[in-house]
């Protein structure tokens, strides 16, 4: 028997919304609705994917099975709750929410409504990360001892510079480092203590952000997480280094750049609005992720990341923000405000 075609509604058509739209188009789902503050982008995408532009979330919800939320972080909560109330499944861009309280409520409400809540911690779908995790989980390097993760790019802009608005995005620590907080937790287990310092906190006049965090996991593993929105464009770098009792695994995007092109003309390099990492692959990891989401939503196949993982990563990020602000290590369970 043929399954009913899954109807997807997208809200938010910035860099990630456009990426997700392209990814949904490569599944058997039907991207049928779009809501955006940008009329122009919405119309362009609607034409491209043969979808309908709706004026509001409320007017789109009756026509979709899944809402894909790609809006600024502080808006995730109310949109997810509206979808749950309409019995619509939710795919939500990371971070799951701006506060732990909101994220918890999203999980509880979706649960009570019997709808799924999927968080787009896309790094788990990047092949270098997925392979490293698989090798480590299968015991190739023994017991994990030290994890080092790096992710850096130029500062993203986004609509109305929302990425730089601490209230909306949580800044670099919450928006970018959350990828590696999640990955560190995937490899090293629950995190107990976070100590972090950031350029934004120490040098507020600097027009960039960069942070270093030391995580201590429950089982004694220690992690070093570096995040940057301080690189000159178009640089985007990621590194993984995991040392265990039986060996060492290393990934360095500088060394895996499979193509390099050096041109004569000295054209000014324009910074992308939202820099994204890329390596030449047959399928980009965003599509891999959306396909996995599709399989989970439509065929209930297991998924490698849960909303609870999204919440846990968010809590590490909030602890890092608090530590950077207070200068003190933060025990996640005793965090002053998770609200």
């Amino acid at each position, binding site marked *: 028997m043929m399954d009913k075609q899954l109807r997807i509604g997208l809200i938010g058509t910035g860099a990630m919304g456009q990426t997700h739209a392209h990814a949904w188009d490569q599944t058997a789902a039907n991207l049928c609705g779009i809501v955006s503050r940008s009329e122009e982008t919405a119309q362009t995408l609607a034409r491209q994917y043969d979808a309908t532009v709706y004026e509001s979330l409320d007017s789109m919800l009756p026509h979709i099975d899944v809402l894909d939320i790609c809006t600024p972080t502080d808006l995730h909560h109310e949109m997810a709750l509206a979808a749950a109330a309409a019995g619509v499944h939710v795919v939500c861009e990371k971070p799951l929410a701006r506060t732990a309280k909101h994220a918890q409520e999203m999980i509880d409400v979706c649960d009570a409504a019997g709808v799924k809540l999927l968080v787009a911690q896309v790094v788990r779908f990047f092949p270098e990360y997925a392979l490293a995790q698989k090798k480590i989980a299968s015991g190739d390097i023994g*017991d*994990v*001892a*030290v994890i*080092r993760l*790096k992710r*850096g790019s130029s500062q993203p802009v986004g609509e109305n510079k929302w990425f730089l608005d601490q209230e909306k995005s949580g800044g670099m620590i919450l928006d970018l480092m959350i990828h590696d907080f999640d990955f560190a937790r995937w490899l090293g287990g629950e995190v107990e*203590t976070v*100590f972090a*310092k950031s*350029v934004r906190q*120490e*040098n507020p006049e*600097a027009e*960039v952000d*960069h942070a*270093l965090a*030391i995580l*201590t996991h429950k089982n*004694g*593993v*220690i992690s*070093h997480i*570096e995040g*940057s929105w*301080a*690189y*000159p464009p178009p*640089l985007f770098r990621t590194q993984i*280094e995991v*040392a*265990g*009792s039986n*060996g*060492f695994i290393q990934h360095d995007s500088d060394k895996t750049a499979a193509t390099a092109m050096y041109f004569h003309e000295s054209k000014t390099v324009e910074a992308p609005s939202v820099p994204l990492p890329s390596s030449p692959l047959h399928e980009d990891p965003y599509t891999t992720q959306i396909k996995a989401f599709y399989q989970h939503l439509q065929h209930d196949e297991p998924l490698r990341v849960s909303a609870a993982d999204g919440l846990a990563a968010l809590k590490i990020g909030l602890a890092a923000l608090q530590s950077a602000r207070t*200068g*003190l*290590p933060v025990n996640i369970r005793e965090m002053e405000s998770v609200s």
Partner: protein
Amino acid sequence: MRIGIMSFAHLHAEAYIENLRAIPEVEMIGIADEDVDRGRLYAEQFDAHLFPDYAAMLATKPDAVLVCSENTRHRPLVEMAAAAGVHVLCEKPLATTAEDASAMIAACEKAGVMLMTAFPMRFSAPLQQLKAQINQGNLGKIYCLNTVNQGQIPLDYRPWFVDPELSGGGALIDHIVHLADVMRWSFGCEVTSVYAQANQIMYPEEVSTNAAGLSIVYAEEVAVETAGLAMLTFENGVFATIDCSWTKPLNYPTWGGLSLEMISERGLTIVDAFKQNLNVFTENPIGHSWAYWGSDANQAMIEEFVAAIKENREPAVTARDGQIGLDITLAAYESVRTGQPVSL
């Protein structure tokens, strides 16, 4: 100038002996070691004169000695040399307790001899270039650094590194001082607080190993931390992490390395002090190694020691620098114990 080496406990002695011999005006008079087997082994390997004991070496009135004993045994040898009126270059860390460091400095001051700390990274050409760029203001205001001084567990060379009675600790005391000193020196300012975490998940207990060149198999109980991460804050507001872990596996192409990435007003600066290597692949034995062709920092450091003695001036790295490096390391240990940042 006559210079001898007191103890071959620290593996760096193997480099220093050749560094001394490469300086035309220096006569490398030989070595002495309280471990008779070790002394004999290295005297033979380096074709050097072996003194029966330290007193016999000092009785020949050398101009200077290099002290390369186990970390906790620096003090007695430095005091012995000072009492004999002999200048000293002491292996890092200067000592393992604040008390020992003060006593060593006092003994050398009283005797009027030089006490230099062996911090070779100040003589690394890539790091010197970084310092010059900072001093010339080419990088703008410095915000933060991610620094790494990982290595293989030194077990393969000298098993005492994992015995706290002789080493004073593990990865933290072995590796924090280099980068802490490089940054103090580069910025010209001091560390104000230290946070650190450590574990012993790698090499959790006993490890069997062949000491280099020896037929003895050591079955050594590893009783120290094998991994550590520290966060330093400096007077100028710069913050920096140091990874001092023994994370490089024994089949890594080289012993380890020292590198840093710095974020400043101008952007990103990456320095790898040991990147100037040839890749060497061999079939028999099957292997891959890196052969270093960069400038020799150890050689430049030993030359500075000799020049400072000759010119009767303070060396580029002082005992005080070594003492401060130790203070930072001890603060890191205290932070590991308490879980809190420690002010200096």
